[in-house]
């Protein structure tokens, strides 16, 4: 079966541009997560959806970051007015149900480079 997919895989943006990163979770998975992974570090939590509801956005680093999952399936992470410090790999993960005991399945990530 299909895993979590993300697009684009690579994105180069000039400073100040807006970008949109897409995540297609595993079909039927209730929970969806976004993480940011800076070079040489572990992933850091950004935001969490349960179906279409965004239940936790405490990890979003600034109000330039916005995520949505309007129909409880595909999710988009949008970054407005990108800055160099936004350069990172953005990972999406989904899990079958809510709760930390459920395995999170990760996508390949989108590598964002802001020049």
């Amino acid at each position, binding site marked *: 079966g299909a895993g979590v997919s993300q697009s684009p895989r690579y994105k180069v943006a000039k400073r100040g541009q807006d970008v949109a990163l897409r995540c297609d979770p595993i079909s039927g998975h209730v929970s969806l997560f976004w*993480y940011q992974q800076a070079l040489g570090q572990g*992933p850091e939590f950004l935001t969490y959806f349960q179906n279409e509801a965004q239940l*936790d956005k*405490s990890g979003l680093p600034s109000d330039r970051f916005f995520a949505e999952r309007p129909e409880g399936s595909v999710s988009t992470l949008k970054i407005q007015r990108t800055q160099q410090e936004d350069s990172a790999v953005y990972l999406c*993960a989904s899990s079958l149900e809510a709760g930390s005991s459920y*395995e999170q399945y990760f996508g390949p990530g989108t590598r964002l480079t802001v020049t």
Partner: protein
Amino acid sequence: AQSVSQHNHHVILSEAASLELGCNYSYGGTVNLFWYVQYPGQHLQLLLKYFSGDPLVKGIKGFEAEFIKSKFSFNLRKPSVQWSDTAEYFCAGPGRAGNMLTFGGGTRLMVKP
């Protein structure tokens, strides 16, 4: 776990050597701990997980980890590594909110043939 730390950033081993990667967590609730692996060019995938019960958990590809509550540790082990184990390994636990994961900084393992 509200924070997870990994002691070793880079490890180089020869094939057939034994492996132990350290992971410590600070704890504030239910202990669900994970080890994820990221092979070169691939996405993060689960190696093993601990929720409760037997503190020695076995995962894929001959890996195991032991949960030691008194030491707040969840170290990953493999008796004999292979070149194909070259990868980055991440320990993870629940964050301050129940559903998110908190990751350690990762350990990059290189196995020399």
